[in-house]
């Protein structure tokens, strides 16, 4: 089609071209956030505001001082405007910080069905969406959300969501299996770990221990592809890890199924035991299932742990 018009001529307005560029640049970012927002919108939040006095930074109310109030709590400026003394109360703030760790290792980039009618997203995509959706919910509830790493300390507000979305949309790591980075976790905060936990359990165990020492509680969610749960393979096969680091060759993959499933169950048991001992919560989510259920579980698990 040929288009001739004043506005579409080569000398088009700078605003239009800027808009186009912006759309192109933002193309990668919004889908994750939109998906997360979309997912978060499906969760109906219960009453969340803690509308009462408590320790916090925001002003809540002045109340008449009564016996037992220390003098230093009296707000003299307010008291001076009347005959009685007033105490300045602050709103009780739930200074909860939530740290997300979304495993970005190569193993998360797996999906058992890349295309076709029953295509599934990769584990990584699902974990990111879950993490960001949780962040959306938390931000909406007024809490601070950040990553476990040093890059994004917990902050409130929607601006933080954009930042998180940017960080989560980054290129994935190159190592086969990920281990949580907990350098940025502040004491008494909450941590959400989203991974397939196929890697060495040692680092995970150590991280959990250190976090428990700091009084941090949290949630672990194992994100698996249905193929990893079913092991629908047969025949002579060379299994390779996603980054290619590990190789296992078998002549009859079908024979390995039962033993693989046993090991998977054992791994899950171990993880659950680990979580229990640290006072954490553990669950498994399959990419073949809808994400809402997982998000709901994550959200309520965080609520429970509070």
């Amino acid at each position, binding site marked *: 089609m040929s288009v001739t018009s004043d506005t579409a001529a080569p000398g088009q307005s700078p605003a239009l071209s800027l808009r186009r560029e912006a759309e192109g640049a933002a193309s990668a970012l919004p889908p994750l956030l939109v998906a997360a927002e979309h997912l978060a919108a499906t969760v109906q939040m219960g009453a969340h505001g803690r509308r009462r006095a408590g320790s916090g930074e925001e002003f809540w109310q002045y109340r008449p001082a009564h016996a037992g109030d220390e003098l230093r709590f009296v707000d003299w400026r307010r008291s001076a405007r009347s005959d009685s003394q007033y105490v300045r109360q602050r709103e009780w703030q739930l200074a909860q910080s939530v740290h997300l760790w979304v495993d970005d290792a190569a193993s998360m980039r797996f999906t058992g069905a890349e295309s076709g009618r029953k295509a599934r997203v990769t584990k990584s995509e699902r974990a990111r969406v879950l993490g960001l959706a949780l962040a959306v919910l938390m931000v909406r509830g007024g809490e601070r959300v950040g990553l476990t790493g040093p890059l994004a300390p917990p902050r409130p507000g929607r601006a933080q969501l954009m930042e998180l979305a940017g960080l989560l949309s980054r290129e994935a790591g190159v190592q086969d299996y990920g281990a949580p980075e907990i350098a940025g976790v502040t004491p008494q905060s909450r941590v959400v770990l989203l991974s397939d936990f196929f890697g060495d359990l040692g680092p995970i165990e150590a991280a959990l221990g250190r976090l428990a020492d700091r009084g941090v509680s949290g949630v672990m969610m194992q994100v698996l592809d249905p193929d990893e749960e079913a092991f629908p393979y047969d025949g002579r096969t060379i299994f390779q890890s996603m980054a290619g680091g590990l190789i296992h060759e078998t002549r009859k993959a079908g024979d390995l199924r039962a033993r693989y499933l046993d090991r*998977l169950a054992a791994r899950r048991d171990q993880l659950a035991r680990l979580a229990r001992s640290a006072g954490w919560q553990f669950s498994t989510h399959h990419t073949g299932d809808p994400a809402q259920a997982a998000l709901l579980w994550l959200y309520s698990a965080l609520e429970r742990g509070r």
Partner: protein
Amino acid sequence: MWMLGPIGFTAPWLLLGLAALPIIWLILRAVPPAPIRRRFPGVALLLGLKDEEVQAARTPWWLLALRLLALAAAIIGFAGPVLNPQRAVPGTGPLLIVADGSWASARDWPRRVERMTSALKDAQQAGRPAAVISLADPPPAQVSFTDAGALIQSLPGIQPQPWAPQSFDAANLPEGNFETLWLSDGLARDSRAGVLNALEARGPVKVWQPQLPVLALGAARIEDGALVVPALASTIPPSPRDVAAVGRDPAGIERELASQPLQFTDSRETELRFDLPPELRNRITRIEITGMRSAGAVSLTDDAVKRRKVAILSGARDREGLELLSPTHYLHQALAPTADLIEGTLADVLTADPDVIILADMADLPEQSKLHDWVEKGGLLIRFAGPRMANADLDADTLLPVQLRAGGRSLGGTMSWGDPRALAPFPENSPFAGLQVPDDVTVKAQVMAEPTPDLSEHTIAALTDGTPLVTRAKMGQGAVVLFHVTANAEWSTLPLSLLFPQMLERLAVSARPAAPEEADLAGQTWVPQKLLDGFGRLQDAGAAAGVPGEELAKAEPGPKLRPGIYTAEDRSVALNALPRGATLSPASWPANVPVEGAFEQREMPLKGWLLGAALAALLIDILATLALSGKLWGPRAMKAAGFGAALILASFAPPQAHAEDMDPARAIEAASNVVLAAMPTGDAEVDRVSMAGLKGLSQVLNRRTTVEPSAPMMVDLKNDDLAVFTFIYWPITADQPAPSPMEYAKLNRYLRGGGMILFDTRDADIAGFGEATPAGKRLQALAAPLDIPPLAPIPDDHVLTRTFYLLQDFPGRYDGTIWVEAPPADAERAEGMPFRNLNDGVTPVVIGGNDWASAWAVDDRGMPMFPVGRGRTGERQREIADRFGVNLIMHVLTGNYKSDQVHVPALLERLGQ
């Protein structure tokens, strides 16, 4: 060529490759099936697991066997195996090819020519001189050997003849010793032995003879009213053939009139009966074995099978009890066996259209003019004299060959005879010529002809004193014959004699017996009309010479007496290729003569079969390998299988219905009213919304305007004739399939014909029709093949702003600008006009992204399906959207009418002046 039993190999050394098979077996055995590589994160959990079975590392033995089988089949196939190869044993010396060349060899003549050609080619390569002799057409002088290559060129000149091999003078054989190849027609013949001896005396003789039975048909005859054809076979043929009776239909077109299966059961001779009505039977000209090109398979029919319809009338009243005195008694006796007799009054008889009418002693003909017409058209009228005729006044009778004197002549009458007179021998030009005149036939009385100069010309039989006994005159295409005596024994003994039926037969009144006796044919010259060639085709004889009847009766067909149809006067005789009384029996050859059967062992290359088997084995191997490595039953394998099945189905699918096959009911419905149509997108939800939107718009139009559209339709681009649609709404989705080229041609025709398409990207025109939105991209791709004029954002004074409502914007659920055909560059506002005079026609496309269908869409209860904007502002926007829809349809229907309206003041002003 190297032979292994009945199989020969053209490249036998390739078979050495079979020796490599055991080595390949060992190699294949050592190589396990190739593994699949899979990326799988769970491999961390697999590490350290051991396989339970080690056996699968090796390829199973049956798979190995299959592969070796495929390989072996390929090796053997390429070695060029041939079943029953023709082994040519090279001969020495000159080569003589003797062909029977008879009618029996015509059916497989091409094969014989092929055999002769191959033999001559071999001879040419070996540098042997050769000669060819056809026994049916024997050479008149001694044959000499010539170059075999030159003989190949002359082979087409040798054709099978429609007769048996003729006698051959051994002296005409070439000089010296030679090798002989005798192409036998497979029939036993007495003459064979002599020729064979003469040939064997000069060198080895090889016989080439097909094993198929030779079939032939004999002469047809009539038996109990049915047409009977004898059929002969040299040996009992395994499968039945069809025999067809061929003749001209009433329209004169030659066609098959009847057909019968020919089946030999026990005997080598059988008879076929065609039970046909006389009308049909008389039309038959030949009977042939269908699909057999041989003169022997054709039996020509002649008078012998033609039964004439003969009407016999007499002037005398029936006298009970006096059978022998009845004037027609002897006629009945003579004709009943060989003709179909009709009796009745002359008027009745004429309607039956007989071939011959015999009037016995009738003088006053009641229907003379009709009878005259009948004779003129080819009828044969035979009259017998009698007392009535003798005494009648015959001046008015035109149906007499000669003028008669009043009163008869009888013994002791006015012209008295001393003795009864005998018959004179028949003259040469008489149809009776050649018949023997018995002595005992005497004539006692007769009617006399007036002596006129042409009397002798008309006389075809006379008494010894020269007075005419039988006279004849041509009349038109027919003839009138008068016997000057009675038809009973009153005046003469002629009806009592054998001569009487013979004379009737000669007059072609009665049919003659199947095999014509010499006496039947003698005395006449028979001229060939049609002649058979060796392949059984009838050809015009041209100027072929006539044959005396005696020869025709007894001689066998040969070069001098070619088979065909011979006629003399009104009679015809068929001479068939198969001599009368001949029998067929298979030829038997002495044991020392090698007989080469042409059909028993045909050369059959096996290469294709073996290579096909190898390919099939490899295909099975592929499936087996897939099954072994677990790839046969995966999701991907299923997909591949599905794809393959779809491919196979697609190749068998019936050709797609031709375009423009719009269902008539649907076409009438669409054409009988304004119908808004939507283009299907493949997305069910979008399609549902467009239909609901068009429904809503139709309701709005119904309520507010005089346009009352029918229910909207979904366009079926493939089958529909788009001309019946007024307006097409085309929502764009990102993954919409593009129309086919033919459908694009339709769309272009629709746009050129004044149709309108409203493209709706439904994306609020975010990107200003750049490539930023998927729908925008798709729109560009979809619209590229369409004939769309230059576009521009709609100008403020476009006619679309005022076709019904006055509008400034055109919202749907969104409110973006829309694009229409660009105004001409030179459009200027005329003085005093509120609008420029823009396009003359209707813009063919309107493009926008405002998601109009959603704004228009109503559900079954007529309520809006989707919210538009917020609150009352939103409702206002929906109203404007509806108004845009109204304006758009008005624009489609009225074109630039509103544009013209702006000129009205100026026009009125002019008219006022």
